[in-house]
């Protein structure tokens, strides 16, 4: 008998058949098998055996006996739920505090979690993401190593040619250049385009709806557009293969749509609505081969199996090899997947980045969740005495401790899932606002199984976190003591106090952060900008505006719309170009100071309200040589080491300029940074000009001025829409991210104080219940309402004071770190922490106030009448 080798059919059967039936069924199957061997041949018998075994996979067998033993559990669970609901119904205010604070905690955690997930998913969707890199420059300037990711146009083709480890390399630039698209009657002005080498579409995984990624850019006169842009151009018609004209007049150029891209996902660093191939750009403007001109991003895809670190050793010398003017510049590859969160470099070494913020947010989310759970823990242990009789009776009638634990866990789970349901609604409603707040497109993915799995496991975790300690605590009561009446649950507990201290510690830390962030913002906003934003607007040169600038300007001035007009290379709120190649008399050969370039034809000081410290403003009417004049800002004059630079000659890229004055430092780039050395160049380089700064006449209403401007704009630039920007709006945008920080800290601290305050309210209400007789006796013995209020308030304030003492260093450290990320910053301040602490204490007193005052004023007869 072949008992040793168990047939596959039997093994299969064992997978699903209840064990108590197994022996009988196996035996019967084998017996029939032996009989079959005798009746038919063995192969057929084996088939039959297998088929017979499979047929056991039916409910009559599968469900056997499993359910029978569960019936009791089901009954008990029903009973637990019933009791839990009754307990909740009996003390509605406590249940409300528990449910509401848990829901708040879960909601804020979920929102932060969705955000963090979005951040972590940036550019993780590319097929070969581990082989994709962005190329960075690294150079030494004035003793410090700088890293930056803007590279020469020739770098990508050079890398592709010279390094075997490179599979593809592309240049990519999306600097917001304007393109006018003409399609029939439609004229659409776009700045959301990108230039890229032809293999861009195959290198990154942006899905195409139409077209072939490999051949899309074979012909230079082609364009890839997103589906939204396609709809904008052609409506519901098929865009693929159609032709669209870019620009008009002499400079116009028809291009063919050779690929339609799906709209870009939100979690990518790339932002474009259309891509033009570099081959087209180079057909029009010629190849740029200068190694000194950093103007594009370079992306590299390494061949499979190429080690990035080893490749970096090979590749770093490529710039020195081709660019004779440098002995120190190197390039290195940085993983694309780390660009979003890890791309901060300090002195040439990767050190943190956005991930620090993300980690803080994660901690914040967890803290909010834990704070909410603490409320449940505190309130249930404090009120456990009320349940003690129930526990005792259950134990006396034979309940095991584990079933009591199960009961109390069941209650916390019920609460967690109730709160979870509320949060789901809250998250759904709040997400659009939250998305705008954090400036990310966040969505709830209802159809994703992970969303539900994650949600349910979160709720299980919350239920466990909140419920396990109370469950163990309450289930440990000894029935003998309780039923004999010896038992009193202590109203004081070290753990409870510790948890309250933790809650308010977090609240105080957040409050300190709110104060510090707010003060920092005010400090920066009040910083002297060095120019006058009032009534100052700028217009980009679209269409024929640049060509007609002179007559446009004259008419603006003559009609009293503007008091001063200047054409410049860029808006005064945006940096445009910089160089370390400025030459001046007595320059140290090692000096690599970076100078910002800003071109302005004349009268910029008048237009923008700059202060001239020495010399004079540019004025072409009076001094014809002013086309090659420059103004230095204070920082630039200092960097060059001139005490009186007027009349000095400087050289930029082989062009000579002469200094005619010094302007006071003005904030050109970031208000959070010291002012960079900046040079204002005259109108000699006519190609540079693309923006008009216009100082409106302040004596006339702005609306009137703008209407008049619009009419003029129609006259001088008929084909393009009238567009303008107020400089103070543009300046305010520089504060967007720090204002997000402010709103988040404000919201978080508000929520923490709300949740912790609710918990405190619950606890103090309970304390008053417990001490009601004591209060009554105190009053009978002559205690005043005020002294009793003081006593009760002190009980709630004490843990907050402890929290203040313990968490002050943490909040100081945290805010100090945050401030240190800004070169221009305030100090945390001596009074910030005490003031924040005081604010929290006052809030806590207000929240618990109604209860304490009512208790102190109650008539002692009420509490002492019954015994």
């Amino acid at each position, binding site marked *: 008998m072949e008992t040793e080798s168990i047939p596959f059919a039997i093994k299969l059967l064992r997978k699903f058949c209840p064990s108590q039936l197994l022996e*009988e*069924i196996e035996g019967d199957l084998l017996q029939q098998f032996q009989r079959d061997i005798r009746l038919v041949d063995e192969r057929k018998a084996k088939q039959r055996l297998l088929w017979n075994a499979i047929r056991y996979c039916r409910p009559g067998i599968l469900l056997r006996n499993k359910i029978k033993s569960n019936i009791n559990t089901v009954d008990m669970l029903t009973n637990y739920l019933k009791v839990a609901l009754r307990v909740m119904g009996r003390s509605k205010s406590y249940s409300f505090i528990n449910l509401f604070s848990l829901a708040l905690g879960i909601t804020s955690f979920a929102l932060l979690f969705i955000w963090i997930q979005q951040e972590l998913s940036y550019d993780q969707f590319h097929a070969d993401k581990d082989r994709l890199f962005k190329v960075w420059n690294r150079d030494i300037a004035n003793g410090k190593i700088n890293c930056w990711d803007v590279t020469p146009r020739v770098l990508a083709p050079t890398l592709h040619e010279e390094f075997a480890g490179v599979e593809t390399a592309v240049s990519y630039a999306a600097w917001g250049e304007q393109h006018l698209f003409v399609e029939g009657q439609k004229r659409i002005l776009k700045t959301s385009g990108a230039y890229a080498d032809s293999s861009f579409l195959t290198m990154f995984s942006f899905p195409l709806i139409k077209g072939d990624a490999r051949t899309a850019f074979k012909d230079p006169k082609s364009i890839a557009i997103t589906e939204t842009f396609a709809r904008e151009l052609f409506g519901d018609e098929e865009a693929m293969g159609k032709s669209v004209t870019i620009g008009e007049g002499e400079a116009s150029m028809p291009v063919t749509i050779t690929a339609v891209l799906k709209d870009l996902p939100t979690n990518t660093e790339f932002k474009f609505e259309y891509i033009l191939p570099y081959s087209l750009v180079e057909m029009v403007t010629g190849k740029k081969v200068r190694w000194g001109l950093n103007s594009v991003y370079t992306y590299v895809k390494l061949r499979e199996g190429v080690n990035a670190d080893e490749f970096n050793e090979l590749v770093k010398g490529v710039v020195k090899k081709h660019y004779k003017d440098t002995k120190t510049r190197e390039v290195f590859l940085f993983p694309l997947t780390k660009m979003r969160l890890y791309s901060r470099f300090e002195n040439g070494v990767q050190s943190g980045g956005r991930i620090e913020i993300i980690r803080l947010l994660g901690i914040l989310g967890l803290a909010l969740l834990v704070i909410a759970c603490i409320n449940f823990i505190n309130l249930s242990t404090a009120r456990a005495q009320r349940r003690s009789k129930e526990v005792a009776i259950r134990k006396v009638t034979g309940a095991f401790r584990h079933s009591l634990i199960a009961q109390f866990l069941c209650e916390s789970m019920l609460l967690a899932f109730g709160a979870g349901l509320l949060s789901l609604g809250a998250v759904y409603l709040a997400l659009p606002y939250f998305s705008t707040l954090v400036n990310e497109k966040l969505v709830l993915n209802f159809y994703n199984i992970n969303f539900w799995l994650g949600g349910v496991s979160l709720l299980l975790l919350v239920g466990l976190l909140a419920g396990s300690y109370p469950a163990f605590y309450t289930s440990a009561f000894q029935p003998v003591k309780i039923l004999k009446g010896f038992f009193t649950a202590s109203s004081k507990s070290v753990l409870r106090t510790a948890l309250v201290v933790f809650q308010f510690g977090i609240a105080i830390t957040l409050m300190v952060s709110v104060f510090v962030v707010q003060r920092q913002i005010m400090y920066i906003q009040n910083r002297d900008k060095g120019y006058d934003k009032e009534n100052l607007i700028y217009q980009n040169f679209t269409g024929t505006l640049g060509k007609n600038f002179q007559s446009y300007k004259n008419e603006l001035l003559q009609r009293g719309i503007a008091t001063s007009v200047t054409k410049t290379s860029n808006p005064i709120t945006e940096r445009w170009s910089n160089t370390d190649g400025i030459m001046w008399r007595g320059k140290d050969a090692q000096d690599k100071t970076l100078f910002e370039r800003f071109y302005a034809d004349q009268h910029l000081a008048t237009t923008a309200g700059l202060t001239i410290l020495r010399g004079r403003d540019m004025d072409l009417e009076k001094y014809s040589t002013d086309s090659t004049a420059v103004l230095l800002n204070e920082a630039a004059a200092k960097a060059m080491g001139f005490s009186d630079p007027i009349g000095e000659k400087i050289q930029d890229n082989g062009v000579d300029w002469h200094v005619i004055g010094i302007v006071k430092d003005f904030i050109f780039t970031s208000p959070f940074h010291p002012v960079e050395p900046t040079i204002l160049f005259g109108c000699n380089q006519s190609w540079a000009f693309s923006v008009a700064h216009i100082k409106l006449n302040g004596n006339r209403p702005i609306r009137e001025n703008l209407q008049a401007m619009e009419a003029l704009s129609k006259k001088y630039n008929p084909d393009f829409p009238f567009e303008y920007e107020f400089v103070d709006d543009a300046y305010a945008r520089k504060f967007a991210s720090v204002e997000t920080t402010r709103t988040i800290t404000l919201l978080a601290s508000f929520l923490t104080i709300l949740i912790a305050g609710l918990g405190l309210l619950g606890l103090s209400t309970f304390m008053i219940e417990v001490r009601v007789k004591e209060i009554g006796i105190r009053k009978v013995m002559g205690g005043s309402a005020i002294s009793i209020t003081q006593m009760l308030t002190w009980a709630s304030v004490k843990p907050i004071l402890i929290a203040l003492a313990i968490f002050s260093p943490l909040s100081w450290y945290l805010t100090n770190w945050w401030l240190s990320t800004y070169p221009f910053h305030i100090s945390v301040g001596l009074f910030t922490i005490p003031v924040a602490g005081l604010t929290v204490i006052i809030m806590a007193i207000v929240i618990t106030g109604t209860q304490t005052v009512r208790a102190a004023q109650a008539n002692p007869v009420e509490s002492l009448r019954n015994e």
Partner: protein
Amino acid sequence: MGKEYLGEFEELILTLVAVLQEDAYGAAIAEELETRVKRDANLSAIHVTLYRLEDKGFIKSSFGGSTNERGGRRKRIYAITNAGMAMLKAMKESRMELWKLVPQLKIVG
């Protein structure tokens, strides 16, 4: 008939358990079904029916001996209970009552 109800196959199996007595177990019942009633029933169907009958209290079971043929696994021997016997009788009687009502002299053809 009482509130309990037996299906045709259940009744058949119950009868066979009563017939086979000491030898009433899964494989034997299957064999008997095949040889006597000329019905080819899957073993799993028989087992499920046996368990259902046991749940209803019409049969009871105990482990019996094992044979080599069964790879050393014990048989589960089923025996009809009093309730099962009563059920069978009740069903047979009600069947007979009805049978009597069928006109017997009808000539087929």
